[in-house]
């Protein structure tokens, strides 16, 4: 691979030198053959800025030979007439090669420097992410261990109320930990490419309502309004993955908006038509577009009337370990990363925008088949 690359570069460098030489050949009588040497030297220097070392060396040798053969009198021989010209060509050769080598070395140094900088930035980013993740994992573990120790060692001294508080501390910590572990497992499944959607006919209304029902304990008094058209046809989706997506978006809204904030989910089917051209008899319109194929997309929008996302962060929210900069709520920053992964695994897309009237709106779009509604009651 690299060899081919080098060969191509050598070829290009050689061609450029020959083209420049050919272009200035008719002019050499006017500008003098020694000026041509400077022009060729400039050519080699420019090549040295982009090309590999081998290509530059080839260009240097080739240009020296070409100059000698075509420009130094006597023409069309490699013989050099005067001592001055001999000195000139030796100097030319040394300068051309030095030029190439120095340029090449500088580029190498630059590259090393750039790699080092990139590594430093990604290391810094990784450290920040790792710190927040390890904090999120260690906090519940600390709470669980601490509470369990208290119960084990001070059993007699604790009041029933205190014991109850410690036990609920353990339960809360374990729940939090369990959520983080699920997220981390989902993330590693995504990264290993192990998410293989199993598309089946799904009742979207059923999916949304049953997901919400399971999330009730976490809803913290957020009223949720679901609007699904009564006649929404069945669509082909992976129920489990889509449920997880809706779940993550909902718990995100619950967690990051004040209690009592309205959350809305709407679902609808939109369609485009695709078609093909057919030939016709008419001479003026020999091709006729037949729109005979409907392409359906399921759109699910999850929106809230909270304060929305800072506009400069919208692009980053689906990144791994993203956490809102002003957030006080917990979370590993994996929820939205998993949303994007699970949606895209099904061939869909997810986007985020702030609504004009305030609040964030996540739009999910899945290309899907729909079930023709000819299944009448039997």
């Amino acid at each position, binding site marked *: 691979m690299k060899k081919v690359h080098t060969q191509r570069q050598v070829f290009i460098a050689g061609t450029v030198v020959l083209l420049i030489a050919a272009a200035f050949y008719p002019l050499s009588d006017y500008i003098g053959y020694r000026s041509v040497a400077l022009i060729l030297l400039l050519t080699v220097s420019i090549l040295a800025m982009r090309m590999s070392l081998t290509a530059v060396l080839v260009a240097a040798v080739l240009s020296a030979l070409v100059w000698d053969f075509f420009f130094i009198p006597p023409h069309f021989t490699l013989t050099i007439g005067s001592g001055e010209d001999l000195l000139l060509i030796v100097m030319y050769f040394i300068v051309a090669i030095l030029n190439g080598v120095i340029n090449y070395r500088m580029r190498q140094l630059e590259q090393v420097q750039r790699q080092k900088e990139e590594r430093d930035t990604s290391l810094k980013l990784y450290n920040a992410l790792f710190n927040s993740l390890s904090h999120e994992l260690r906090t519940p573990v600390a709470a669980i261990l601490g509470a369990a120790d208290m119960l084990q060692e001070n059993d007699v001294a604790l009041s029933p109320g205190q014991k109850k508080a410690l036990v609920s501390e353990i339960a809360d910590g374990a729940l939090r930990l369990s959520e983080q572990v699920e997220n981390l497992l989902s993330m590693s*499944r995504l990264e290993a490419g192990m998410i293989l959607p*199993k598309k089946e006919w799904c009742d979207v209304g*059923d999916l949304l309502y049953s997901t919400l029902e399971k999330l009730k304990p976490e809803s913290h008094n957020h009223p949720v309004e679901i609007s699904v058209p009564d006649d929404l046809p069945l669509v082909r989706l992976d129920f489990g993955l889509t449920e997880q997506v809706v779940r993550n978006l909902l718990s995100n809204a619950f967690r990051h908006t004040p209690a009592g904030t309205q959350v809305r989910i709407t679902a609808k089917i939109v369609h485009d038509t695709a078609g093909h051209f057919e030939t016709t008899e008419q001479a003026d319109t020999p091709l006729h577009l037949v729109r005979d194929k409907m392409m359906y997309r399921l759109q699910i929008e999850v929106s809230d009337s909270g304060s929305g996302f800072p506009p400069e962060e919208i692009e980053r929210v689906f990144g791994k370990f993203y956490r809102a900069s002003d957030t006080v709520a917990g979370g590993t920053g994996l929820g939205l990363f998993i949303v994007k992964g699970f949606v895209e695994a099904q061939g869909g897309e997810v986007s985020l925008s702030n609504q004009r009237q305030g609040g964030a709106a996540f739009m999910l779009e899945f290309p899907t088949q729909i079930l023709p509604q000819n299944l009448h009651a039997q």
Partner: protein
Amino acid sequence: MNKPSVLVIEDEAAIRKLLEIALQSSGYNCLLAATGRDGKILAAAQQPDLVLLDLGLPDGDGQNLLQELREWYTKPVIIVSARSSEAEIIQALDHGANDYLTKPFRTGELLARIRSAIRQTTNEPADPVKIFGNLTIDLATRTVKKNGETIKVTSTEYALLALFVKNEGRVLTHAFILREVWGPGYVERTEYPRVFVGQLRKKIEDDPNRPKLILTESGVGYRFTEG
């Protein structure tokens, strides 16, 4: 009356200990097995009222054990499995498991499932009239009443409802429902149960969007509960 007995087949000592405490404190006689082999021997010797089976056993596949058990053991089997293994759960249900729980599960949920599964087997099966809240289904006359008024159901809807009623509390997979209601040739028509469960919910549920009778088990199937 004798205490009902539950056999726990689970390789993790910590979970075994926890289940033992939970079951004993709720009035069950608890039998413990750490391997599938011990589990099989205990099940045969003690004839427990319910088996709680962890699918991830070290000696051989939990699925195989389930199939072997099902050759002679007719009482309820509840499966415990890691989350995100829908396919495994569906397979176990098709091999005759009555219900499933995914780890991590809550003890309260587990005990409720065990209670409900044991109750089903001790239920008086002779009475053809089943009552679930404001819904009455008479399996003898094939009539369905809601709040005392007869509701019209199509023959397919009735077949589906009767299947649910006869398997109250049990998780029914889409494939099982298709085989039982439409026949073995229809196992691929996964749209049928969705459409007909939707229709049935509109007729029998108080709020079809928040069903209390026919519950959706995500990616697996449905469960009929007493509401």
